[in-house]
């Protein structure tokens, strides 16, 4: 699989957009999910998603085939999301962007699958989780999403974020500390409901 991927990478490097479309197709779901949990609302997610793949394409030449291609794409996505979050912070600072809430729970309903009514309360809880996760500092946010939502190993996350294993573990620990503080009431009550 990785091998025939290489074929597409080579072709895309030579400007073959159809080959690049195949590469996109292979990674788009993963990238969208990751970005959704880093960026927050779907409109921004879709912008960052596009920017990610434009960067991937422009930088294909710098991919050295030493790591997995998907690792490289995920890294690009995360860096793009981090850049975006930084810009957004500045924009908000200068009031160019008066959207105070980086993550609107109402947005979730637009993109995620509908849940049956009896799950509404559960749904509410997960919306809260999503919102709080998107509010985490960038590195903690990325580590958290990769570990808990996408099931990456610590070493793989360290590779993607280009930090040490210890830093990843620490980020995960800090993220969990913050989250449980934010979620405590909802966390306790909806835990009991089950």
């Amino acid at each position, binding site marked *: 699989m990785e091998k025939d991927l290489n074929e597409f990478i080579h072709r895309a490097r030579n*400007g*073959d*957009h*159809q080959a*690049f*479309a195949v590469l*996109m*197709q292979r990674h*788009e*779901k993963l990238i*969208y*999910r990751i970005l*959704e949990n880093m960026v927050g609302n779907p*409109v921004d997610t*879709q912008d960052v*998603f*596009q920017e990610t*793949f*434009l960067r991937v*394409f422009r930088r294909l030449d710098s991919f050295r085939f030493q790591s997995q291609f998907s690792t490289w794409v995920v890294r690009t996505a995360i860096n793009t999301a981090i850049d975006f979050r930084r810009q957004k912070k500045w924009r908000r600072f200068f009031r160019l962007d008066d959207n105070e809430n980086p993550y*609107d729970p*109402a*947005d*979730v*309903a*637009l*993109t*995620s*699958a*509908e*849940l049956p009514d009896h799950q509404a309360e*559960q*749904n509410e809880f*997960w919306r809260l*989780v999503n919102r709080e996760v998107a509010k985490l500092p960038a590195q903690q946010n990325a580590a958290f999403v990769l*570990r*808990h*939502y996408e099931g990456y190993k*610590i070493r793989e996350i360290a590779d993607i974020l280009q930090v040490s*294993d210890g830093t*990843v*573990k*620490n980020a*995960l*620990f800090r993220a*969990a*500390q913050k*989250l*449980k503080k934010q*979620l405590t009431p909802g*966390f306790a009550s909806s*835990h009991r409901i089950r």
Partner: protein
Amino acid sequence: MKECPKIHLLQEALYGETSDADLARLHAHLEVCQACRDEWESQRQLVQRLVERPERTPNPQVLRLLRQSVLGRLQHRAPRASGQIFSFLNPSPALQLGFVVLLVAFGFILGRQGTSLPASSSGLNDLDALITASRAVQAQNSFIDPYLAGVERISYNPESGQIDIHYNTISDIALRGSLQDASIRLLLQKTLIETQNSAVRMDAIKAVHQIAEQEQSLDSDLLGTLGRLLFEESNPGVRLLILRVLKTLPLSEAVREMLTRIVLQEKNTALRIEAFDILTRDAQNNPETNQLLQAAQADSSSYISFRSKQLLQANTI
């Protein structure tokens, strides 16, 4: 509050690979340290709970649109040597470059010259290529590279029911088809996504409005594009026009959601009022809208807050 110096034991055990010896040390510490015991318990609970999180699956249609849009933007930015555009006229270097000159018909008729293009034997694949990739369309003695040329104007003739998509090529070239034509719809959608020109976006939305009026429905792709534009667009006129399109549609779940978001979050009062009116046209005896009405009572527009109260009262009687 100072943190316990042994906190790294927890980090390792929760997120790393711990040896039995490390675990033994951790448990020994947990026996004597309340703070770490609490932290350990709560983090483990959180991690366990996360496993139950319902998966959020990205909408495949959204992904497809995004892919098309990225490919379109690549096309725009692809570096081109000067004069290369004209190499379309010479098929062999064009082929080498990966560009395929093709004849597209799909019921399109060439605009000004009035000559029809020969029907192509290939089906939707070609159209997909026209929409997503870099293929030029041959039209008499001219070519349209959809990405280099771009749409200049879209016009709809209500008498003939035909729509013309004019490209800003040197000679006036238009693709003509009917609104029922799937390929025309795709081109409208593509124009909505790509064009920088808000007047052209308005033209395209007007054409979509025609479709919505004729069919009382829109396929989810087009609706999704309108939805995205409704929130991304900076030109309020374009946004108002999108609301007018939504107005002609039945209040499906998706339409309702877009409108609700406008009513609750939009700063522009005119847009809020428009969305509010559409949403509440069947508000009487419809308990579903009560929640919205509750929230809208606090709206800064006196019209919206007054109407909300009025409708709520009517509903409770």
